C-alpha cells in the first residue's frame, strides 16, 4: 500500500477474480485487471452487459468476495476492511432479507448491525421509511412485499446509517416508472449532499441523467471509463436543411456519416472534422444558406453499443489469433 493517502474514494489496481470450479479444472474469468479510480462526491455509473462482472466487482469492493489478484482501497482502507463498512451503504442486486420480519423490524435490525447509536435508531428508521415512501407499510412483513417494495426497503437499509459512499447494484430494476423517478430523486438529493454514489445499471437513460462519470465493463475488462461529458463530447455537426435540391445529394453522399429525410427537411450528420467545411460550402453553393447547424452530442446508448461491439470484435480476433 502506498504511504500517501490517495484522493480517490475507490481505487483499485489490477483487481482480478477468477473462479475455480472443479478444483481448478474449469476457470471462469469474472473480472480481469480492473483499474478503477473514483473521486469523492462523484456519481459513478458502472455499466456493462449481463455477466460482465459488475456484481463481482461490487462484491470485491465490499470484501464479500476475495480478489484472486490485485487489490485496492475503499475510503482509504484496504478491501475487506470491516470498520469502513460503517460508512458504506449497499443495495444488493437481489434484495433478499429475512422474510419473516416486518419492515420496521428489519430496518431496526439493520440499524443495529450498522452500529447506529441506540438512541438514534428509531428516528433513523422512520426517516428511511419516509424517504422510500414505505411508512404506510412499516408494519407489514417482508414476505408480503412486491419486488419493487423490497427494492425500496433495500435502498432504505442502505441509507439508514447515513453513509458517505453508496454502492447500489442495479437500483432501478424491478421498479415501476414512478418508483424509478423516486429513486432518481433520492440519488440526486444524495448527490447534492456530497455523497459518493457507485451504481451499476443497464438502464442507460438513467445513467445519462444521473452520472458524472461512467465505466463500461465488458467480459470482465474495463473498456471505457471517464467523465460522462467527455465520453459524450461532440465529435461532429448536424445540419438541418429545408428544401434541399436533390442535385446536391450525389456530391454530399460521400462526405456525410448519415442522412435522413423528414418531411421537407434533410438531416445531415458529419462526423469527420475535415469534411465539415466542404459540406457547408456545398450547401451554401446549392442555395441552402438557411441550413441550421448544431454540434452533435453523442447518445450514451450509442457509445455503449459501439464500445461493447468494438471490444467484442477485438477480443474475438484476439482469441482467433491467439
Amino acid at each position, binding site marked *: 500500500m502506498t504511504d500517501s493517502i490517495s484522493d480517490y474514494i475507490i481505487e483499485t489496481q489490477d483487481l482480478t477474480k477468477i473462479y475455480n470450479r472443479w478444483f481448478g479444472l474449469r476457470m471462469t474469468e469474472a473480472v480481469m485487471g480492473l483499474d478503477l479510480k473514483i473521486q469523492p462526491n462523484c456519481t459513478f455509473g458502472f455499466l456493462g452487459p449481463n455477466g460482465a462482472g459488475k456484481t*463481482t466487482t461490487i462484491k470485491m469492493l465490499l470484501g*464479500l*468476495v*476475495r480478489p484472486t489478484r490485485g487489490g485496492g482501497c475503499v475510503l482509504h482502507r484496504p478491501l475487506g476492511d470491516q470498520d469502513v*463498512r460503517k460508512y458504506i451503504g449497499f443495495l444488493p442486486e437481489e434484495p*433478499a432479507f*429475512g422474510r419473516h420480519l416486518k419492515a420496521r423490524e428489519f430496518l431496526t435490525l439493520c440499524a443495529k*448491525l450498522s452500529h447506529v447509536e441506540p438512541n438514534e435508531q428509531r428516528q433513523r428508521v422512520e426517516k428511511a421509511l419516509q424517504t422510500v415512501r414505505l411508512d404506510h407499510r412499516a408494519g407489514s412483513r417482508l414476505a408480503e412485499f412486491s419486488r419493487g417494495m423490497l427494492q425500496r426497503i433495500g435502498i432504505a437499509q442502505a441509507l439508514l446509517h447515513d453513509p458517505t459512499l453508496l454502492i447500489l447494484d442495479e437500483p432501478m430494476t424491478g421498479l415501476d416508472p414512478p418508483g424509478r423517478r423516486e429513486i432518481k430523486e433520492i440519488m440526486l438529493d444524495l448527490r447534492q449532499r456530497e455523497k459518493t454514489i457507485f451504481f451499476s445499471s443497464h438502464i442507460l437513460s438513467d445513467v445519462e441523467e444521473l452520472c458524472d462519470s461512467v465505466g463500461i465493463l465488458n467480459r470482465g475488462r474495463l473498456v471505457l471509463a471517464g467523465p460522462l461529458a467527455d465520453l459524450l463530447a461532440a465529435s461532429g455537426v448536424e445540419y438541418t436543411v429545408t428544401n434541399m435540391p436533390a442535385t446536391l445529394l450525389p456530391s454530399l453522399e460521400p462526405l456525410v456519416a448519415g442522412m435522413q429525410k423528414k418531411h421537407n427537411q434533410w438531416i445531415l450528420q458529419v462526423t469527420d472534422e475535415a469534411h465539415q467545411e466542404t459540406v457547408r460550402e456545398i450547401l451554401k453553393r446549392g442555395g441552402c444558406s438557411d441550413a441550421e447547424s448544431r454540434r452533435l452530442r453523442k447518445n450514451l446508448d450509442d457509445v455503449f453499443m459501439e464500445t461493447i461491439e468494438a471490444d467484442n470484435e477485438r477480443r474475438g480476433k484476439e482469441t482467433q489469433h491467439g
Partner: protein
Amino acid sequence: MDDVMVIAQNTASRVLRMKALYFLLAIVTCIIASGQLYGDITIGREKEYFLDLGFAMIMIVGVLCALVACFDLPRELREKTMVAVLSKPLGRDRYLIGKFLGVCEIALISMALVGVGLMILTAMAGRYRPNLEIVKALILIYAGVVQLTAVGVVLGTFLKEWLATLLTLVIFWGSYALGYVAANTEGFVQTIIHLLPNFAIMSSDNVVARDGVIDWRLVGGGVLLAGLYSLVMLIVAGLIFRRKDIA
C-alpha cells in the same frame, strides 16, 4: 456485542416462530406422557422406562435443534440474505458467533420446554419425585448439544445443507461410540479420541434412571468442555468462512 446478539436473536426468532417446532415439542411431550401407561408391563421398572424415554426424547429434540446450524448458513447463502448482512460492519466472525448462539438459544428453549414437561409428568406420576438429578442430566445433554451445534456451524460454512447435516450426524454417532471406546484405550489412541467432541456426557441420564447422584464436578466439567470445544470450532469455522466468497 449488540450486533452479535441481533444475529442470534434473528436466527432464533426465525425458527421459534415456526409452528411446526411447537407441534414437534407437543408430540414429544405426549410421547413422554405415554410412558406413564407402561405401568405393569415394565415389571416394576416403570421409573427407569419413563425417565429413559424422557431423556431420549429430549436428546432427539436437542440434536434436531443443533442441526439447524447445518441448514441455516447454506440457506442464508443460497437465499442471498448473507450478502446483505455481511456488507454491514459486523465481521464474519461475529456473524458466525451470532449464528451459533442463536442455534444454542433454540436448543435451550426447546429442551427447556420438554424438560419442564418431563418434570411435570414426573411429579404427576406420584411414585417418584422430580429432583435435581434430572436437571443435572439435562444440563449435560445440553452441553453435548452445544458441541454438536459448533460442529454443525463448521460444516455449514463450506458444505451444502444435506451434506453438512449428514456429516454432523455421522460425527455425532462416531464420537458417541468412540467416547465409550476411549474408556478402554490408553495413551495416544485415547488422546486422539479425546480430541473429538465428548457426547458420552449425554448418557449421564443412566445415572438418574438408576437412582444415582451425578457429581457436580461432572456437570461443571461438561459445561467447560462444551465451552472449550465451541470456542475451538468457532475459530476453525472463522478460518474457513473468511476465505469464502459470498457469491
